[in-house]
């Protein structure tokens, strides 16, 4: 059982964000897929985009994406000290497209070299699409003196930028299930 859990933990930032500590994640092999109880579920095709043309704010800092003097991405800022500075993900934008993101509730009671039978639990399965097409996914990691870029005394240092494009292979399944004392 423990070996199964050790082997199957997979960190995915989006799920770590929403389920920080108790949600354990696992990669499954084909053999597990043949023991699914419960049909239904969904197969999702489509795309998700963030600030494709810009966001709803237009001021001295934010603008439309065709305005080179303004930032058109989203901004996420937080601080860990009461009167401290702000850690910022700035100018977040991009587009992800995929076919085959699946979502369902299933029971794992076999496979995994015998660990599945011991595990014998229901899990939330997020079946990853084989390929995700990234289209100009970008953001900056920065530090800032104020939460809003329009606040008085605003100063910001961009530490580094990330820009991703092309196909990203994401195979397997992400399993989410409770552990520990609820």
């Amino acid at each position, binding site marked *: 059982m423990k070996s199964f859990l050790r082997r199957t933990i997979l960190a995915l930032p989006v799920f770590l964000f929403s389920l920080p500590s108790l949600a354990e994640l696992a990669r499954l092999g084909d053999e597990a897929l043949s023991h699914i109880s419960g049909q239904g579920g969904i197969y999702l095709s489509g795309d998700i*985009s963030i600030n494709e043309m810009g966001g709803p704010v237009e001021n001295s800092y934010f603008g439309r994406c065709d305005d080179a003097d303004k930032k058109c991405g989203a901004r996420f800022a937080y601080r860990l000290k009461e009167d401290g500075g702000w850690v910022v993900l700035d100018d977040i934008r991009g587009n992800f497209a995929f076919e085959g993101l699946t979502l369902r*509730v299933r029971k794992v009671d076999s496979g995994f070299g015998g660990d599945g039978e011991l595990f014998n639990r229901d899990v939330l399965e997020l079946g990853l699409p084989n390929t995700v097409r990234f289209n100009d996914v970008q953001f900056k990691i920065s530090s800032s003196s104020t939460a809003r870029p329009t606040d008085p005394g605003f100063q910001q240092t961009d530490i580094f930028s990330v820009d991703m494009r092309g196909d990203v292979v994401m195979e397997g399944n992400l399993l989410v299930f409770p552990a520990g004392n609820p």
Partner: protein
Amino acid sequence: MGAPDRIKQLAPMATGLFCVVLALPVVADMKSLDDSTLANISGQSGLSVELDLGLTADRLSYVDDGSSIHLDGFRIGSAVDPSGQAFHLIRIDVEEDASLNLDYLVKDRRIEFGDIRLAGAPGVSMGGIFFDHSLEGYLNIRQGSSVGGAGYTFDSAYTMTGGRLGYRTNGNEVFLDDITMNVEALGVTLDVVGDTLALNAPRITGDWEVGAIRYSSNPLNHGVSVDSGNGQPLPSYGSLSGSYELSSSTSLTAGGRSGEGLRIDNETVIHSASFLYRDDGKALALRDITGVYRINDLRLDVATDWQNRPALALPLGSMDGEFSIGAIEVGGNGKSIGQVNVSFLLEDQVFNGRSYSNAIYLQGGGHPDAGPQGLRLATEWSLRLADFSYTEDGNRVIFSGLQSWGQGDVTVNVTRDGVTNDTEFFDGLRIGFEDIRAGYRINGLRVGSDDAPLQGGTELLLALGFYPAYEFELDGHVTLGAGGASGEGITINSDVSIRNGKAAIIAVPYDEGNGEIPQKGLWITELDYDAHVRDMTVDVSQEGLAVIKGESWSTMDIGNLRIGDKESGQSFGRFVIQKYETGSSMTVVPGGAGDVCAGGMGDSPSACAASGGVWEPRGEEGLTVRLKQVLAKAINEARKNSLTWETNRQSSGVGEAMNGTGTSLVLNDIHTSDGGDFDGDGVDDNSFGLRTDLSVDVYQTRVVKKEDGPDAMGVTGNRGDEKIMDGSSTAGYRYVSNPTLAEADNRPLGFAVKARSRFKELSINNIDLVHPVGGAQTAVYGVKMQNFDIKANLTATPIP
């Protein structure tokens, strides 16, 4: 209609005939006559009776097996003068075929009951009903019926004008005002078949209009359109109109569910119908309605309910039917959302190990603090099976296998603003819920056809508060006030409390074709939910249906978020979600997403294809819901937006996790903002909120095989192949590596939701870690998200 022969001495006879007319208002329908019709009436030797009728009775009683229901304060008289009489003119002719013909004219008549009481329920009553009208029409009665012999055949038609139908409790009234109606029913037959009275109406046609639905809180008003105090028209919920063509057969048999009573069986076919609700001239229209319903073994008894309370009981054996609404139009431009089909079966069924049936027990009293008059409907229902399908631009999605069950009391009062015994009341028609224990579930979605595989997809509608399964205990009220944001419309105030709720966020089918199985899913359980809404207006606008909330706040305390079984599934812990909104709104707009570049970017088919997307013209119909949630800054601990996640709770003696004993992560005082104080009032503006537009369509999508080899249905293909629907294939589809244009036209249909969420600024004041002994420690001193515009085009299909 002339009246040459006035024989007032025959008043008793005329009264008797009038009573025939009165007693058969549905079966014997009537229509207006013009002079040319009158000129052709044969048998000129008839009688004309002119009558000014004023009739009162302190009490009319109906006794059933020793139990009785009393109609107090019965009156027939003038509608405009409480002490006056109603004018009647009746012309009686015997036709050449020996039929009896009654032509009649009734002016400004009111029929009313001041109160309705049940013996054995002292101190409470159901309230009063009044019905005003002027009638002009005829009733022709002849011997012989559909089965021959001793029956009768009726032809009838009438026009009703100046109608009012009202309900009054404790001095407050809600009534349909200015009702106009034309009805024609020809060839209605009445037979005695064995011990059954059989009524058959082969064709009933009519149209109707309600000029306003009015509310009065002034006890001095009674059945008037204008307030007696200020002379202003009473506020209106809006107006109604419609038309219909029906055929119907009804059987009436003596005998209740026990002893005396009445049994009713009925089958009605709706050949065509329409229904329009208008709000300041803008319509919500249901057009091209057709359908059929069958009522089997409906009984009428004076009996007691499951708590031994005296009641007028209406237990139902079963009822099934099917309806189709050809077009649902809303807004000022008459655009259609699409078509809806509903099939249903109300019948006894066992849910969760308990047998449910269908019955309503009418009682007096309503909410105990609203006054002695009111209506209480002790209700039990069992919706054994229903399918609801929605079709837009020719493509259909079916919410399959809907079941519902429940038991509890629904109260009805007409109330006015005020607080009595700590109960807050509001102006309007109050629908109360007391100890209702109920639930519903759907088996899943089917897209395209009835035999399509079950799939999920309701997960995409969670933003609208839609759960695929829900069990709950419900108390509270919804009060519907007259008048919207401006002019006509509806204003809603409500306080709702749910206890011991179990709602599915994701649910697998409860029946995969081999009988009922425990429905697994992702469940919020041990749910306590308190929600309050103030001054929420509902109006039909030029754009669609507009709902604007004045103020709303709620606490959703989820004892456990469980995976698997809703009773025994393992828990992620406890979640508490507090919401506080001011000025939030929702607009329902006809039309879906329109042209969409799915899986790519671009405003044209070529640009979309170049980015790897698929251009999808999703058509004119569909549904778009625009939500604006203005999350207000906290004003106190009860009215704020926050999210708490608690785990590691101590267990009670029976092994249940005790709330408040664990460690918590608290996202405190979440609120939206426009990003600054632009109006100079000292606080940040907050009018943009969190805006989410959801467009729902049924459309084709790309489904790509994820693994080599056979899928769950045994259909073989290679990884990356596309699923193409093909009726000649055994499974109804096959996999194709490079679809041709013709094959691409047969991509599978999916439940397509296009969502767009935007906000200018969303803040979290602080994120705390709370230990039950050590107290709260702030981990994050503020989160601020700005300038987000997130779009998602997602189409849900079954997992291959």
